[in-house]
């Protein structure tokens, strides 16, 4: 017998390293954690407050309503501050802004100085473009949001650029810029702008395609079971040898001869019938006996 009783061997897998001792990773002070999270919440609240303040400000826009400026050609200062303030909005906030402007009696588009249109007569729906191809039935409420269809288009042009992600996640990103719908005031600049826009679109498309191929490759690797390490796909380490079956005779097409019992064969085996077998029913045996008696 061994002098020292062996420790019973565990059936559980060995964990490589013992758990790190508490001295290596000091537990953070709960108070500090709480303060940190409170700060995060506080900054979020601040951004929300900022948005609601700017909403009230934008609901009174534009600040200059003089004759040279209108919705298609807004005062530069107004356009600039609108672009800056609208940057952090979510589409829902933008809807609130439109509603707020309407309750102030203004057109929903922020840079438009006109009052909102009021459609005479009752009815919740209205026919637009009657007798034309783009005929439509629209709720009156939708129509009354704007002074004209053009303003609706301009406002929607801004709305589609807004992002659903939370405002505090976007606050630090300077690259988010909102463009206004360019108006056809002078053709030269608009043509140049159009070319620039096309270029930008093509670039975006290229980037998108690249991203897509990379994603596809990643997915395929995952499907194959390739491990990815540091974003680099490693080669599989399975040895593959292809062994051909040796063929001795030339292959022959199956033929159908008259005497063949191929139709009785199931999976290469032909079932046989043995009359003396125990499994044969008693009745059949009896009839066999009778026959032998009559013969005698």
């Amino acid at each position: 017998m061994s002098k020292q009783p062996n420790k019973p061997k565990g059936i559980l897998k060995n964990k490589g390293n013992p758990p790190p001792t508490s001295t290596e990773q000091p537990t953070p002070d709960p108070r500090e954690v709480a303060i940190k999270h409170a700060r995060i919440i506080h900054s979020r609240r601040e951004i929300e407050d900022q948005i609601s303040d700017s909403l009230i400000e934008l609901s009174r826009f534009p600040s200059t309503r003089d004759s040279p400026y209108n919705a298609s050609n807004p005062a530069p200062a107004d356009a600039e501050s609108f672009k800056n303030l609208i940057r952090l909005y979510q589409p829902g906030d933008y809807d609130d802004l439109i509603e707020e402007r309407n309750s102030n009696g203004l057109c929903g588009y922020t840079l438009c100085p006109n009052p909102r249109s009021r459609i005479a007569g009752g009815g919740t729906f209205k026919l637009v473009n009657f007798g034309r191809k783009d005929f439509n039935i629209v709720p009156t409420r939708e129509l009354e949001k704007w002074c004209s269809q053009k303003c609706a288009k301009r406002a929607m042009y801004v709305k589609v650029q807004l992002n659903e992600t939370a405002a505090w996640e976007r606050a630090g990103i300077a690259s988010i810029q909102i463009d206004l719908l360019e108006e056809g005031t002078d053709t030269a600049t608009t043509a140049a702008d159009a070319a620039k826009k096309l270029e930008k679109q093509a670039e975006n498309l290229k980037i998108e395609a690249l991203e897509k191929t990379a994603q596809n490759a990643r997915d395929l690797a995952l499907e194959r079971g390739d491990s990815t390490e540091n974003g680099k796909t490693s080669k599989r380490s399975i040895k593959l040898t292809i062994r051909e079956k040796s063929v001795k005779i030339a292959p022959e097409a199956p033929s159908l001869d008259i005497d063949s019992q191929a139709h009785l064969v199931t999976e290469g085996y032909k079932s046989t019938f043995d009359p003396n077998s125990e499994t044969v029913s008693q009745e059949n045996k009896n009839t066999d006996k009778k026959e032998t008696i009559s013969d005698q």
Partner: protein
Amino acid sequence: MADMENINSEANERNIVKAWRAWRTAHEMVQDRGYELAEEEVKISLDAFRTQYTSIDGTVSRERMKFSARPSPEMLKKYTPPATPSNPDPQPDVGTIWVEFNDDPSVGAEAMRRFAKFCSHEHYRTGMMILSGNVSSAAKKEIPKFAQWTTIEWFLEEDLLINITHHELVPRHVILSREEKTALLKRYRLKETQLPRILQRDPVAKYFGMRRGQVVKIIRSSETAGRYASYRLCV
């Protein structure tokens, strides 16, 4: 021309009656919550209302329709949290209420903010706005920002044309004080969450201005038992 005038005066008359009924319901609501109001203030007759709150041309001037009320001693007692060693002299959760009528077609965030600022500046613990138009969603978002100083409530005037608690299908609702609530939970050995619930936006809960965590006793008449009381927790 005479017909036109006739129609106009008729519409105006209807408008006055509507305002009067909403005014009465608002007073009844404030009184039912436990604020102090004189009986003649609540049961104002149509003629008295007409002389007080219509302008010279005969239309209702809703800017003049505003009032405040102080909580009665019973109400103050009901809403005072029990004294604890750390807080030996607790203050009641309720204070003066301010009620205002508004005839804007829609109330925006700016108007709501102005009203909330007015209420918190004048130290009204509750501000009630009775509107003829709707409230924009941005204005609704303004309300919780002032929750620390004042509770803002709003009602549509058309919802106050009749007092819903006077309807025969609405049973009597009694809001329990803190002591009554603890006694109830002790008596039936319940946790708060085991009570049936009532939503804070329930019309009757809105009428009584219930807060989350309050318990309301609902007393129905029963054919077999005479009276049947049930309790609901406001969520």
